[in-house]
């Protein structure tokens, strides 16, 4: 659990860093005199999001400070305080304190002294920025001391990604890595003076050990005195050997049979985990070594330290049991710029294509001779691995919700039950990072505005405990992330009245229910009577919409009075993997999302019937299913008889089952979705394109857009074009 929490916290701190960057950029722009509404709103959103996340993780100080800061920003945003030089200066220093607070929450810095900043903020709130006149002359001076944020921010705008490198733990601590492999014996041998005087030749013992496969890895000569003090009769060396783990301890011990008993003999097994055996190494010698005289024991210390770095690690272990684990975690993941991953993915795609070209050009014998199949297999594996680097289960974004709900429940006194579905849906890393903020706001809105108080729920005949259903689902080339509550639904009259009051719409505007629902996404819109820590400032849904639109998606709101509200983020999968069926349509290859395919049939003569010119249906077990041809879809000429074609029955959300007439089904494979709008613009009916194994491009069909009536797509296109 704590690991999981750490992971979520790490995401939060990444978001904080992003938010701080945005806030700093905005404040700098304001300082430069560019204080337009969008800039102020962006600073406000950033601080608001940091506050929200901090609250969820119980960072009390950070929340408190961000809240005060936000109060001032809110006034500035509302135009009640002018963003004069003095005010901006205070905000900039507050921003620095905020950065320090983030660092403090992260545990990487001391708690900042925010008294002065808080006082300054309060001052502004009280005077409405009027005290500014006196401060204004100081503003130019303030430029120099305004220190960069304590938080290290990335000036290049990299989006880091965590890549797990499970196998690298040994490399992570090269200095400490024992030369012995797991399970090998570490043998330390320091003959005593008595041993030498007994004429037991250490060389013989070592030779015997070597004959069994042991190897000297270290000779400790630290006990060797200066030449003047050297006693030729004494022994000063301690040999350290590594013996194969296949030997038994008694076999090794047998070699020492004739060695005087007061010699140093240590036999320990090298354990698998480098950190774990540390204590054993310390304990084991005491048991394993026969009697050790005091003077021989002394020189052992340096050996052990030269060996598997045991003493140092042991100290760490004792002092702070949590530390080694953290060091390990840091060693096993590295941050990689997302752009580099994309580049890698593209290059690997090229490699796959070159592979297929080789396969085409070489005869089967030549392919075998150059071991092409092996190369192809490796390439395929590389491709799979690179793809899996970017796609992450959406669980990462969802996992912070339960904790959030608990805290929200505590703060509001509402009981909320959470149901999560589809959290294994794989989503592009960039998408996961971007939906964190909107998701927080959606959940908070659902609890604060959606779910009614327990009394109201009981009065309405609903269970006392509210339910929030959080789901993720991939449909074609889109991902649907939905937060659905069973609360009171959107109070449209109130939304409308508020919108009129705020001047967002005219008092006599004619609006559909859907249009009124959309108003809750307007910047600064809130129906809450009081501003609470949870919501009510009216940035929440604005954040949701702007983040989702920045990703090229859209937000859908459905609300039934008395039954609840469902807010859906519909996101494109810029670089998602799609399980697709490759079909030929009028000679051209297309990819059909396999998830929407129900079945494929080859029609019997007469099974496909024309209802009106240009409209056909297919009879499927007594049901009539409309059939679409390529002609209907793209205006490609297609006059074939139905019997010569295949009809693929697909499931669509808007019109149920629909048949698509295709020439052939070629293949089934996972494809990488490439968006068309990267270099062109979205095209209706297409969810993107993909590059097939031979380097050619196949277009991905967007079933929903294809089967529904064109006019129904007006809104969708608007959303995508934005």
């Amino acid at each position: 659990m704590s690991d999981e929490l750490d992971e979520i916290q790490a995401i939060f701190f990444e978001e904080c860093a992003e938010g701080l960057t945005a806030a700093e950029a905005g404040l700098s722009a304001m300082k430069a005199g560019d204080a337009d509404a969008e800039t102020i709103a962006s600073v406000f959103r950033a601080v608001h999001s940091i506050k929200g996340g901090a609250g969820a993780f119980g960072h009390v100080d950070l929340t408190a400070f961000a809240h005060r800061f936000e109060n001032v920003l809110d006034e500035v945003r509302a135009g009640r305080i002018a963003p004069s030089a003095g005010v901006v200066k205070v905000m900039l220093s507050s921003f620095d304190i905020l950065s320090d607070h983030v660092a403090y929450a992260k545990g990487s810095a001391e708690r900042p002294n925010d008294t002065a900043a808080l006082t300054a903020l309060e001052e502004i709130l009280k005077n409405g920025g009027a005290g500014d006149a006196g401060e204004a002359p100081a503003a130019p001076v303030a430029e120099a001391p305004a220190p960069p944020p304590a938080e290290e921010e990335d000036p290049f705008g990299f989006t880091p990604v965590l890549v797990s490198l499970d196998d690298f733990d040994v490399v992570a601590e090269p200095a400490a890595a024992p030369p012995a492999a797991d399970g090998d014996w570490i043998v330390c041998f320091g003959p005593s003076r008595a041993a030498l005087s007994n004429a037991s030749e250490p060389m013989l013992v070592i030779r015997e050990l070597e004959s069994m496969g042991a190897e000297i890895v270290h000779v400790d000569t630290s006990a060797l005195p200066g030449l003047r003090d050297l006693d030729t009769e004494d022994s000063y060396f301690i040999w350290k050997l590594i013996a194969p783990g296949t030997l038994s301890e008694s076999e090794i011990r047998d070699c020492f049979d004739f060695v005087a008993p007061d010699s140093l003999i240590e036999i320990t097994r090298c354990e698998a985990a480098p950190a774990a055996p540390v204590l054993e190494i310390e304990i084991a010698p005491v048991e394993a070594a026969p009697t050790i005289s005091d003077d021989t024991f002394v020189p052992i210390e340096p050996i052990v330290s030269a060996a598997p770095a045991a003493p140092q690690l042991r100290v760490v272990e004792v002092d702070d049991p949590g530390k080694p684990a953290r060091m390990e975690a840091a060693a096993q993941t590295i941050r990689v710029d997302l752009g580099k991953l994309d580049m890698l993915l593209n290059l690997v795609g090229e490699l796959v294509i070159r592979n297929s070209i080789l396969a085409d050009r070489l005869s089967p014998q030549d392919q075998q001779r150059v071991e092409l199949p092996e190369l192809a297999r490796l390439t395929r594996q590389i491709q799979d691995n690179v793809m899996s680097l970017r796609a992450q289960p959406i669980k990462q974004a969802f996992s912070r919700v339960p904790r959030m709900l608990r805290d929200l429940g505590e703060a509001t006194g509402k009981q909320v039950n959470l149901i999560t579905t589809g959290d294994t849906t794989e989503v592009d890393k960039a998408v996961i990072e971007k939906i964190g903020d909107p998701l927080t706001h959606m959940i908070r809105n659902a609890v604060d505005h959606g779910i009614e108080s327990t009394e109201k729920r009981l009065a309405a005949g609903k269970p006392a405990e509210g339910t929030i259903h959080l789901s993720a689902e991939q449909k074609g080339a889109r991902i649907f992330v939905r937060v659905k509550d069973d609360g009171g639904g959107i109070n449209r009259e109130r939304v409308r009245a508020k919108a009129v009051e705020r001047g967002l719409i005219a008092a006599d505007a004619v609006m559909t229910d859907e249009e009124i629902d959309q108003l809750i996404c307007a910047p600064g819109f809130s129906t809450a009577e009081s501003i609470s820590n949870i919501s009510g400032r009216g940035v929440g849904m604005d954040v949701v919409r702007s983040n989702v639109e920045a990703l090229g998606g859209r937000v859908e709101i459905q609300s039934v009075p008395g039954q609840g509200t469902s807010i859906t983020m519909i996101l494109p999968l810029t670089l998602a993997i799609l399980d697709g069926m490759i079909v030929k349509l009028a000679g051209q290859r297309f990819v059909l999302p396999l998830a929407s395919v129900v079945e494929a049939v080859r029609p019997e003569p007469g099974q496909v019937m024309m209802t009106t010119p240009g409209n056909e249906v297919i009879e499927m077990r007594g049901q009539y299913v409309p059939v679409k041809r390529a002609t209907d879809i793209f205006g490609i000429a297609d006059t074939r008889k139905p019997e010569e074609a295949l009809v693929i029955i697909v499931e669509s959300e808007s019109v149920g089952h629909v048949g698509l007439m295709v020439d052939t089904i070629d293949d089934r494979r996972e494809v990488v979705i490439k968006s068309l709008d990267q270099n062109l613009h979205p095209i209706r009916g297409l969810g993107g394109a993909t590059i097939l194994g031979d380097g050619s491009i196949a277009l991905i069909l967007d079933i929903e857009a294809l089967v529904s009536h064109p006019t129904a797509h007006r809104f969708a296109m608007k959303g995508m074009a934005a």
Partner: protein
Amino acid sequence: MTKASDTTLDRKIITFSLGQQTFGIDMRAIIEIREWEEPTPLPTVPSFIKGVTNLRGNVVPVVGLAERLGWEPSKIHSRSCILVVNINGKQAGFLVDEVADIVAIASAEIQPAPDVEIGEPSVISGLIRITVRGKGEEKEAGQMVLILDLDALSLTKHMDIAA
């Protein structure tokens, strides 16, 4: 060519032919030149968009430049090639008849395009006379090159039509 200071050769253009005309595009916008390869056609797009092709994992639209400029579509032949350019961060491939040369020019010598020249004057940013390599000493018999304004050719300008 080397005397006056206002004739410093400060720009490089790549020249190519479309029908009888010679055009130039600023070298800085060129990503690469590719052999013609039949692109994957796209539905419901203006006919000058020939389709999309795979440029090292990127899906890049291919534009019939002749049609885009309102002329007869280019006929594909062995020297047809695709000039891949970067227009405001978006990549596009232009089908051209033949790539001729890379020429250093002086910005100062570029003349503004006469408005009457083509139906859509905005796509031509200027005219310049260049000497053709290989055609010997006859410096006077230079060749007129129409320099294209890539921003005006941006495909996303047609977003409204497609949407």
